[in-house]
């Protein structure tokens, strides 16, 4: 969660929006739209995966636009826009600006929308070379040279991290919006959740490198609960210190290249991870 458009203390909407969710819940259900950009659809599937809760969701909101799930396509404006995927083409840039204009509250979901996704690995290479290898007629391809998070182009109200997102965080966020309260989406390390789960730390007890200390919580510390190091799916935590962790990885026998690869995955282009992998590539 990075930005609050509504002050949790005084309930006033900032940025000049005279838009009120609280009264709206009673009058009519908020119109919700789900948009897809460059992504694998996994995060949208998390919405569908919330089977038990979906009926509640469907009762509480009006799903006006969700091509992955329904043929119903109501026009905007929408009360809540949920965006999956990164921005990779000039057309995406135009489209995300339109989406922003049509949505009162914008929520980005997943590593692609919040950090550029795994496809941001191409940001370290010259895109022209890929285009030539992949497409027989590269002259028809119009693309940006980098895969970028939505927040680089438009204002985002709420960010839900993860590859893929945790459906309970999405439900919590929608529920917070509907009930005019601040959603509980902590931004601290995975370690705190890991310890609350009573796990034995895999890094200390087994010597397994783990990105948990620099990664934002949200998944429920799944990997350490299964004796694996955290892969960093939720991106950098609120005050990450990757260089100290890399030094420890090094002491545990990881090579410089291993460290580059550890930080260069789903959230490779998130600033703290990007800088750390760059440092170790030099």
């Amino acid at each position: 969660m990075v930005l609050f458009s509504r002050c949790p203390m005084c309930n006033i909407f900032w940025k000049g929006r005279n838009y009120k969710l609280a009264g709206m819940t009673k009058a009519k259900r908020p119109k919700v739209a789900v948009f897809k950009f460059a992504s694998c659809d996994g995060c949208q599937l998390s919405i569908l995966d919330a089977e038990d809760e979906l009926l509640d969701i469907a009762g509480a909101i009006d799903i006006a636009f969700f091509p992955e799930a329904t043929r119903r396509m109501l026009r905007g404006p929408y009360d809540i826009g949920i965006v999956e995927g990164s921005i990779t083409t000039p057309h995406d840039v135009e489209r995300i600006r339109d989406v922003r204009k049509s949505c009162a509250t914008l929520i980005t979901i997943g590593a692609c929308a919040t950090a550029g996704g795994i496809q941001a690995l191409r940001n370290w290479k010259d895109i022209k070379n890929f285009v030539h290898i992949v497409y027989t007629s590269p002259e028809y391809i119009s693309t940006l040279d980098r895969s970028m998070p939505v927040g680089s182009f438009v204002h985002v109200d709420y960010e839900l991290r993860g590859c893929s997102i945790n459906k309970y965080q999405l439900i919590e966020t929608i529920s917070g919006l509907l009930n005019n309260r601040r959603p509980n989406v902590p931004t601290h390390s995975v370690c705190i959740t890991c310890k609350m789960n009573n796990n034995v730390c895999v890094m200390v007890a087994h010597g397994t490198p783990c990105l948990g200390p620099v990664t934002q919580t949200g998944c429920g510390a799944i990997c350490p609960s299964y004796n694996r190091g955290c892969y960093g799916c939720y991106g950098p935590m609120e005050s990450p210190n990757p260089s100290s962790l890399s030094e420890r990885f090094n002491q545990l026998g990881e090579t410089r290249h291993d460290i580059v690869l550890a930080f260069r995955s789903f959230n490779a282009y998130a600033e703290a991870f990007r800088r750390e992998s760059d440092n170790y590539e030099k």
Partner: protein
Amino acid sequence: MVLQSGTKRILKLTPDGLEQILDVLHKIGFETIGPTLGNDAIVYETIGSIDDLPQGWTDKQEPAAYRIIKRNDQAYFGFNAAPQSWKRFLYPPDRTLFRIRRKGKGLEFMEQEENTAELALIGVRPCELEAITIQERVFTSSEQRDDSYLAVRKKLFIIAVNCTSSGGNCFCASMNTGPHAKENFDLALTEVVNANEHFFIVEIGSETGLSVIHDVESAEPTEDEVETAAGLVRQAESQIRKLDLDTTPKLLSANLEHPEWDEVSKRCLACGNCTMVCPTCFCSTVEDTTDLSGKLAERRRRWDSCFTLDFAKVAGGNFRTSPRSRYRQWLTHKLSSWVDQFGKSGCVGCGRCITWCPVGIDITAEVQKITGT
């Protein structure tokens, strides 16, 4: 031997006698929690018999490293502090405080049911015993009174185990909390194991302790046996790490701008592991949630840490944004302002924060650098 009230409160017990104690505890309705092997560590979990204890195992602890290895004897309690302390049994990581339901035009408040667990903790180390006492002091103080903590605490049955060797990160001797348990237990054991014999010297610390051991087979120990046990505990007093209990509180608060705070913050990950594993850390946050319909709301309390950003977020901003200020808060509260607040240090010297810090930051080394001791 059948024990009369008022007889000498030191006994000798065989491992079989310990098993009988567990049986008695089970019969009178206690859930027994004790050390057991789990996930390449010695963890505290529900145990059914002494066969669940990590017999013949020990742990090796260094900054940021923990390994279990085989001992060359069959000791039941030949190890030191477990990865996590007992605090989660008294002060659970996540607890619903109350729920509210919309009912007609009004609201219905539903208080959480009292925690009715009757727990017997088997193998509480002297440092941990002191930590339980410290948290109890916190949760009985008028500002932080927590009835659910007290409800479990009141019914707690504690079998302490004195340490006969200390771990690599232990420094209880200098904190005056171990390796010998002096009070606040029901029974305290010292394990003696050598080529010829394997027995426990038991000290009885309460009437409940006395009644539990009353019908258990035991013997009167010889003076030699008592002395052998005491000698083993004295051995555990030699520890590499130490902290000066008298000078540290003042010297820390006098050095709030010491350059070492900057140095340590370059290594500190602000991950919060130290506070999670610390047996005395008691901070929590409160979260309000609702269901989608808004008909049901819930207030939950979950563990928090002075290392999280939200911890110091108030209307108007955050007063501890830098990891430097957060590390300083942790160290100075634990070792200095805690004394002003509760009359005693907040550290018992268990060494967990050193072992379980992913980058091995050593609280005793930091204090030495900052206070110049």
